[in-house]
């Protein structure tokens, strides 16, 4: 077997192992989808009335791409906690002592977590349709919208894999990444238009990749109106390109770093 074929075959084995856990511990998926549903309902019905959206876009259409982005970004933190757990339980040592591909454990992990994000996004999209969200573009455009969201989340999974390998305690990984990522998903155009932000925060939000992916998804789902004002920042004028650049950058940096860290780590 060639190296590539071996890597794929080992990654499939590990992905399957990780997905079995999702099947056996349904709480995981229940909580992964309950909180986004709660967010959809809270923002749609509690804050929705108070938030002014530029143009005449219904708030549900403005909101859903934001919720999608927040959920998949936070969902990718699972990668770090799961790797730390495997490390703690000695499983990484076992895998590292096997004649298997040196990157398959991380590929299998990030791919399984991508799968979890797919499930979350499906549940949220269905909830969104119930509360008034609509896709107003073509099928390929809508598919591209889901794709940019999932790709960014996938790249963040690789960043989180490194965090998990270095931090080593699942609870700490969870809390620390939440402290960083939760504000990152709020200082963005996720829930409110950027026009309402104070200047410094607004500049940060304009260049925040979360804003870009939200903008990209809104454009691709057709959740913006033709008459809506054009954003000032380049990042939001070319949100798909900007998101793809971020995704590529994160992958180029963190895939090698994570694989290297994996090869050197061991249970303490």
């Amino acid at each position, binding site marked *: *077997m060639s190296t590539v074929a*071996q890597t794929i*075959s*080992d990654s499939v*084995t590990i992905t*399957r*192992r990780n997905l*079995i*856990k999702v099947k*056996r*511990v349904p709480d995981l998926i229940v909580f992964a989808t309950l909180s986004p549903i709660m967010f959809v309902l809270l923002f749609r019905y509690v804050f929705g009335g108070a938030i002014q959206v530029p143009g005449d876009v219904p708030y549900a259409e403005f909101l859903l791409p934001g919720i999608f982005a927040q959920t998949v970004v936070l969902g990718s933190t699972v990668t770090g906690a799961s790797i730390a757990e495997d490390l703690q*339980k*000695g*499983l990484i*040592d*076992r*895998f*590292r*002592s*096997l*004649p*298997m591909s040196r990157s398959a454990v991380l590929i299998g992990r990030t791919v399984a977590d991508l799968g979890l994000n797919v499930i979350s996004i499906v549940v949220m999209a269905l909830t969104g349709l119930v509360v008034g969200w609509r896709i107003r573009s073509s099928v390929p455009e809508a598919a591209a919208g889901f794709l940019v969201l999932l790709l960014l989340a996938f790249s963040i999974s690789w960043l989180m894999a490194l965090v998990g390998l270095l931090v080593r305690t699942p609870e700490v990984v969870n809390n620390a990444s939440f402290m960083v990522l939760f504000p990152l998903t709020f200082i963005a155009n996720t829930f409110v238009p950027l026009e309402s932000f104070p200047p410094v925060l607004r500049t940060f939000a304009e260049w925040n990749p979360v804003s870009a992916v939200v903008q990209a998804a809104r454009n691709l789902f057709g959740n913006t109106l033709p008459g809506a004002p054009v954003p000032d920042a380049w990042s939001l004028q070319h949100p798909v390109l900007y998101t793809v650049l971020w995704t590529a950058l994160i992958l180029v940096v963190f895939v090698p770093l994570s694989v290297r860290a994996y090869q050197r780590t*061991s*249970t*303490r």
Partner: protein
Amino acid sequence: MPGMTNAVVVEGLVKRFGATTALDGVGFTVAEGTVLGLLGPNGAGKTTVVRILSTLMRADAGRAEVAGLDVVRQAGEVRASIGLTGQYAAVDEYLTGSENLEMVGQLYRLGKRESRARAGQLLERFELTDAARRPAKTYSGGMRRRLDIAASLIARPRVLFLDEPTTGLDPRSRLGMWEFIADLVQDGTTILLTTQYLEEADRLADRMVVIDRGQVIARGTADELKAQVGGERLELTVATVEQLVLAAEALRPLAQAEMRRDEQTRRLSMPVSGGTETLAEALHRLSATSVQVLDIGLRRPDLDDVFLTLTGHAAEDAAPPTDPADPVEPSLPVGTGAPR
């Protein structure tokens, strides 16, 4: 030339963690098809040796070969020839027993059918067939260890590393584990076993290497080690600390070497010869004093005796005082290469 080749060759291994030296020139060999017991207290460097040999860690100096392969330059081939059972049962709690074994089989590239067949055989051999379809989360500690060892055997490794396979098991599970390991030896697997228990090594190992603070301090068969340590010991517990002094005086002529006296437990221990006759003589001498003997008996040497004889300190003293239960070598005290 069966029996003539070495399945494991270790030369001058050095490993440092920051300022501490975990291994300070460890060397030994394990002949093909034999069991080597690597003995030592917590923090002696046993686990570090196993990690280097199983390619999980690189030594700072020295060289090691497993199954004729260099652990650094041919790490991939080494991994295909070994099985590793670490100190923690490395099984996936959410997978069933058979799923765990089949996964490991596939990662050893056995193929689906072969993995399933081997998993079935091993589950039966380790008496896990009834639990095969249950998630490992529901297993007892002993069952998890058995599943873990089964996983490391799935590809019929030439060399098996067992790092403290019975630590944390209750006595009954420990006995069961010894039987399973003894069976493996019958199959001709070369085994490197680390343990804190001389009794365990005595029972399972052909030869032993004793390490302390990163250095080999003794090697040989169980009998050779015991000869170094001395033979049996007389041990007794008395009622009061004052009586401890009296008993020591009364028994001094019987002691072959220095006595050990522990005031906390009011226990006296000394190497003796002559077996039960000496015991009778000791009782006779004690009856002439006012010493009240609570417990007395002859005992075979254990790892404590080995350590006391070879290093001048008891096994548990060698562990870092901060956390004796922690198997981490990096917490060793500085300057471990103390002259003997």
